[in-house]
């Protein structure tokens, strides 16, 4: 089961945080800070895995991936495979990229409700439900389409 998904930038600012088990806000912040402290002390060219037991309690592993200015962090338990989760991050980022046409940190900040939607299509209640980025895209596009109509309405109101 996946316990948490986080995206933070290289300065430790949270860009996205989703915990699949409820945690109070302060606890979340503390965990994020703890993870960031570990992440930023990691050298380059080392593995993408971190033993997260000291932060997240027993049976928790952490896989992270560093893209541009962002760290993508997945925390999960022994029912997942580290390498596979690494690719799951890849799927996530690829999907983001398809969605935002060359995604960058700004996209994630300004559209985080959409990022949440993408994530919800991939991971549902802590379980990976979809791993094909084209399928995820399809689902997200359907949702976007359903929004388009009211959006055009409000636009026309503005211009008038």
């Amino acid at each position, binding site marked *: 089961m996946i316990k948490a998904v986080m995206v933070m930038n290289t*300065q430790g600012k949270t860009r996205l945080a989703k915990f699949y088990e409820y945690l109070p806000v302060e606890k979340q912040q*503390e965990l994020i800070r703890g993870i960031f*402290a570990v992440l930023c002390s990691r*050298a380059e060219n080392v593995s*993408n895995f971190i033993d997260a037991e000291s932060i997240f309690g027993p049976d928790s592993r952490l896989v992270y991936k560093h*893209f*541009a200015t962002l760290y993508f962090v997945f925390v999960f338990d022994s029912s997942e495979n580290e390498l596979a989760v690494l690719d799951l991050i890849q799927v996530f980022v690829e999907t983001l990229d398809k969605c935002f046409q060359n995604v960058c940190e700004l996209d994630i900040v300004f*559209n985080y409700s959409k990022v949440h939607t993408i994530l919800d299509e991939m991971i549902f*209640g802590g379980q990976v439900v979809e791993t094909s980025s084209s399928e995820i895209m399809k689902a997200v596009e359907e*949702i976007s389409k359903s929004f388009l109509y009211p959006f055009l309405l409000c636009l026309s109101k503005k211009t008038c």
Partner: protein
Amino acid sequence: MEQLKTIGRELAMGSQGGFYQSKEFLDLVKSIGEARSKAEEDRIVLGEIETLKRRVSEPDIPKRKMKEYILRLVYVEMLGHDASFGYIHAVKMTHDDSLLVKRTGYLAVTLFLNEDHDLIILIVNTIQKDLKSDNYLVVCAALNAVCKLINEETIPAVLPQVVDLLAHPKEAVRKKAIMALHRFYQKSPSSVSHLVSNFRKRLCDNDPGVMGATLCPLFELVSTDVNSYKDLVISFVSILKQVAERRLPKAYDYHQMPAPFIQIKLLKILALLGSGDKQASENMYTVVGDIFRKCDSSSNIGNAVLYECICCVSSIYPNPKLLESAADAISRFLKSDSHNLKYMGIDALGRLIKISPEIAEQHQLAVIDCLEDPDDTLKRKTFELLYKMTKSTNVEVIVDRMIDYMISINDNHYKTEIASRCVELAEQFAPSNQWFIQIMNKVFEHAGDLVNIKVAHNLMRLIAEGFGEDDDSADSQLRSSAVDSYLHILGEPKIPSVFLQLICWVLGEYGTADGKYSASYITGKLSDVAEAYSNDETVKAYAVTALMKIYAFEIAAGRKVDMLPECQSLMEQFLASHSTDLQQRAYELQAVIGLDAHAVESIMPSDASCEDIEVDKALSFLNGYIQDSIEKGAQPYIPESERSGMLNISNFRNQDHHGASSHGLKFEAYELPKQTVQSRIPPATLASTEFVPVPEPMSVRESYPTTIVPSASSDAESTELKLRLDGVQKKWGRQTHSPATSTSSSTSKKTVNGIKQVDGSNTSNSSTWETYDSRKHVEINSEKQKLAASLFGGSSKTEKKPATGHKISKPSSHMVEKSHVRKSSMEIASEKKALVHQPPDLLDFGEPTVQSSDPPSVDPFKELEGLLEPTTQLGSTAAAATNSPDIMGLFTETPGGTHNKDDSDILSSLSKQPVTNMVGGATSTQVAQSSKGPNRKDSLEKDSLVRQMGVTPSSPNPNLFKDLLG
């Protein structure tokens, strides 16, 4: 004009499909990005909270506005601030008719609330309605909320709808309904136990996505109860076979692998089902063997599947052929340059050695490389492996290594773990007592506060008992060596409390036993301890008792006792101590000193700590008295069992006896407190209590429950409360650790890197150093060789001491060669340095071909400086990197998009350079950048700006919006 701009921007953002944010929000994000300190950020966010508080409570807010406020609240809470005032508005939004608003409402509530929140009751109704909606998107949104917000009590409210949805025409809905059901199962297995068969049914779903999703709950079901799912082995195997033969739609291919995530889940399930079951396992051999052959070991995901195969093979009933393939795969992992693969290799090796221990030997050098790797994660994994393969022949080497590592790290959590492992291994495999005590001393010295006090007690017992052999001289030798070492250790400045207690105890028992040290010397040391650690009561108590023992032994031996002046002042202090325990011990000491030799010897016999204290439970010393009484006409004592028929007193007695501990309610009358029969009671009264039912018990009965009940219930309450807290902690661990970890890994890295390796990178410039260095390498390698031999190669007494023999023969010549290779790669590494801190272009898969040993640079701004200088050495690295794993090649299918945002695009290099990507690794990113031509420096500057600002659009970085507006 201004308005037009806003509209334009909205249009640009809006093209993302309605997930639009207002300018206010952009400004907020921007100002937070620019905040220079946490305090400033907090100030901004608090201001925002105030604004939002005001706004959300205004009447008649348009929905669109409200939606945005809620999203801003989500953002604020993500930054760690309380947004609870807005929860109710988020709940209200879920009632809305518009899908967009509803979805936002659901998103917000799933992020804000937990399943036990008071507001949930307001949402359940909406969820129920939405689950029945015609619009499947609404249903999906509701199912999402179901997963997060429905608790055990509310499950029945939505369960029928969720079950209906399992047959929904849309696969997306079926998939989510399965997951929701799975969630219910996790929360309360009993509530959905009758629906478990649905998971089996969905396994045959037409849609591979639904089938894949069903594997998650099935995995969990199988792991809790293997036997009821044995019948599915055939189905799983056939699914896996079909997947591996690419029968699934192309969309599920990932990097040319057919549905790897589904394969992994299936392999996990098969591993469970085949464990210890020969028949089931035999069904799997073919398909697993096929996957081994088909797996593309050049891609990350291919290796993930391979790793899962190894796990499966090591779990199911062993098959020699598969084990061989698994061993091959492991050796490929370990030989890889990627740390990730090495990590997986070590992990897989740990699994496989349980079945075939001999395969570890082939990989000994690789394992030792991993042990010396600067990567902390890999190192820990390797220690885990070593822990698993410890035998009595290699325990010394392994435990020594572990202790060195334990000393080098600061992370308390891991330190505790490794300390307890050291103790466990030492207790299990210790070759000699001497060694055991040495190891324990080290563990206590460096992690004393972290180990369980029981470990100290065990050690005390060991020292006291010896090893059970009837060899007294060996035992006393052991003790004197312990005393020697402890007296030595007492010179250290800071000693953990547990260790001090142990030291005091041993010094007290055996400090003067061998006559090497005088009593005054030992007592002096003990009072030093008590003085130096004056705020530790336990240590002081141990010290006082130890003093008492020493003096007692002296007195018993007929020597005159002169209390040292510092001891005397210490005693005076303790006699007036606030701690009653200390006081009592001090008084006892005073009393003992005043006694004569004979009395002292019977109170404090020397070396008697292990002897059982005999307790005369039968009170035989009273026999004479009883005899007298009986002769005078008293009734003899009738044992309880014989009395049982008379008045059922024994029942009452039993209850009375248990009453104190169980606090249960009593429904029967209480008997008068039964007096003990044996001695004091005159025979006449004894008879009367046994036979006469006195009316008094009634009052006892009345008063008893009233006094006891409250305490019992409060007791229960308090434990319940505690339990709940425990549950929370178990899930997420101790919170106090997080700050410690940051320092830990950085410092550990320093030590871990080793001076040797840092030397290595310097040497390329100076020749004198070079020779020294290469010699050093030889030494290291020969040492490594020996280490390997002692770890893996059975019993070898000569190899245990690496320092003695300089016999560098065949194997080490190979190592010399290796060291040269490494050195030349160092040179490349130093050239590459500029490139290592590469611009953030992104899919930086480049698994380093070179283990560059540069120390971890933490300062992002330093990296930035490097970024702004265009790098020129692309060629050399390109050559160096070509043989790195071809991971990027797999991305070539990614369709190219429009590249308007240039360098901060995460995937730009991928789609732009499909051909060069094939080269793989670090090269592709670099080449990609160089091809961006004149734009490059420009974009880097922009990127650095973005970085500095956190995220700063508009004014400091106008390019962004120019791009967006086209």
